[in-house]
């Protein structure tokens, strides 16, 4: 590569990218700064880029609060149980569908694809879940969306891309379909399954609408519902009263809760982003 002189274009372009970087990262910097700051500085609007009067009071309040640790635990449980069911069902359901001459393949595929374009809508879905007696149980969170069709199709395409000889030699060795699936196909699809796992984990961790309609018992609320009550309702009330400052929850506590809720994701981010990009790309092959 020849070294080239920087032109005006390079300067402008770098400036634009720096601006993008700033706009993307600033909300994170702000949230962390406020969570660590002393409330007197926050009330005076003195926090812009870094914390002032650094303290961990807000984080202590999180641990002492009656709701947040419980909700955090609930989110972890829903995410772990939900993702396990998601990935297991997706990985096994995709397998028969990847077989070229499976009996009734056209029927099954059509049946599945239709649901991508047409759905019964939230009210009938709610009624089904209610009729099954799942309201206020973990099952309402983890079962009604156990398979995401998009992820199912990605997994199916991935299985199809594995060499056919692999399957044939296993059959000759007398392996059953179950063994071929669990001992050959699934281990070979680790990378692809990792990226669908990531999407399912994100889906559960960030899910708010499903728990909102299916859970009434506050003890079962996940973090996102607590966050909504704390962040949106509280703030909405404030702005409706035209700027009159009467927050029910201290700003530092709100922002500390945001930080705590995204911390696991940020911690895994460097490791996950590889699979994240991969997942997006896998999806595009099909399209």
């Amino acid at each position, binding site marked *: 590569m020849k070294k080239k002189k920087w032109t005006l274009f*390079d300067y402008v372009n770098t400036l634009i990218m720096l601006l993008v970087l700033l706009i*993307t*990262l600033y909300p994170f910097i702000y949230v962390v700064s406020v969570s660590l700051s002393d409330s007197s500085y926050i009330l005076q609007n003195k926090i812009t880029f870094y914390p002032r009067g650094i303290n961990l009071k807000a984080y202590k309040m999180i641990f002492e609060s009656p709701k947040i640790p419980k909700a955090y635990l609930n989110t972890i449980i829903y995410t772990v149980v939900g993702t396990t069911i998601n990935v297991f069902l997706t990985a096994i359901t995709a397998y028969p569908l990847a077989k070229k001459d499976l009996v009734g393949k056209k029927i099954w595929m059509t049946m599945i694809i239709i649901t991508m374009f047409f759905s019964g809508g939230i009210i009938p879905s709610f009624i089904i879940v209610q009729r099954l007696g799942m309201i206020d149980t973990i099952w309402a969170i983890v079962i009604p969306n156990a398979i995401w069709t998009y992820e199912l199709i990605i997994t199916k395409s991935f299985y199809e891309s594995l060499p056919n000889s692999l399957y044939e030699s296993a059959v000759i060795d007398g392996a059953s379909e179950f063994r071929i699936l669990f001992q050959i196909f699934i281990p070979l699809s680790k990378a692809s399954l990792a990226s669908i796992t990531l999407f399912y984990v994100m889906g559960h961790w960030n899910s708010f609408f499903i728990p909102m309609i299916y859970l009434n018992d506050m003890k079962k609320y996940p973090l996102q519902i607590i966050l909504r009550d704390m962040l*949106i309702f509280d703030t909405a009330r404030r702005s409706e009263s035209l700027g009159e400052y009467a927050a029910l929850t201290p700003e530092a506590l709100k922002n500390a809760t945001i930080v705590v809720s995204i911390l696991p994701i940020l911690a895994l981010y460097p490791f996950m982003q590889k699979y994240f990009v991969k997942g997006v790309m896998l999806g595009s092959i099909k399209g």
Partner: protein
Amino acid sequence: MASLKIDKKPVAVPQPKKLSLMKKVKRDWQLLLILLPGLIFYIIFRYGPMYGMVIAFKDYNVYKGIINSPWVGLKHFRNFFTDPAFIKLFRNTFMLGIYNLFFTFPFPILFAILLNEIRNIKFKKAVQTASYLPSFLSIVIISSMVIDFLSPSNGIINNIIAFLGMEKIYFMIRPEWFRTVYVASEVWARMGFDAILFIAAITGIDQALYEAAELDGCGRLKKMWYITIPSILPTIATLFILKSGSVFRIGFEKVLLLYNPATYEVADIFATYVYRKGFEDMNYSYAAAVGLFESIVALTMLLITNAISKKLSEQSIW
């Protein structure tokens, strides 16, 4: 001669592929068993609700259930179509969808093209990695950040406005600002994620093209215009068609979190109306009727775009 005859006998030819259904089922029983749990899921939780849509033609009563609730024909649809809210919802859903499509679409492309021109690999990587950080955030957090940053009392945007000597804006209660706020936050949250595909498409361009152009004396901008953009045009076209097909499927969760009675006039869309009628007023049947109407409109939209794209792609070069 004799040997020829023997050759013609189809003794060694394997059985023809035409197996009877029973035999096929017998052959595939293991596979069908593996498929079963997934199929049950689809039948109960995807087709169950489709059947449940019949409540749109009934007066659903929780105690009577779906089957025993009385039929009322098109009552709920008539009520909905004659409701003044109908036109408003139609307009709001359509407008928000269109705004969202046209304003969120160009940014990832522009970002991908400009990012590609950055020479410092480390800086380039850093910007890209940071760019999809927001897509890991929940809608609740994004919405709360939006509200906080736009807050008239201590939001940074209003602080800047005040600093410039202008009057502070109460963004969240001003109907005229709702769509802008929604779309702008969508751009912020999704640009990096949506750019991934374009960045990949640009990476796939043959470097020889650029080298040839350089020999011909093309500058950076010319190379972008004559090589980068035409090369990713098929990706752009495909994604645009996909997105316009789902123009009616707006992320209603964010609307639900960002709107309030002061902005209902422009912010209320079909999905949020269904939510309020169903879960707040407990009017399940009416809400299901509105939901069914919305599903049909969305599906029609998708089929129309699909038909248009088929026509176009047959005639265009790709």
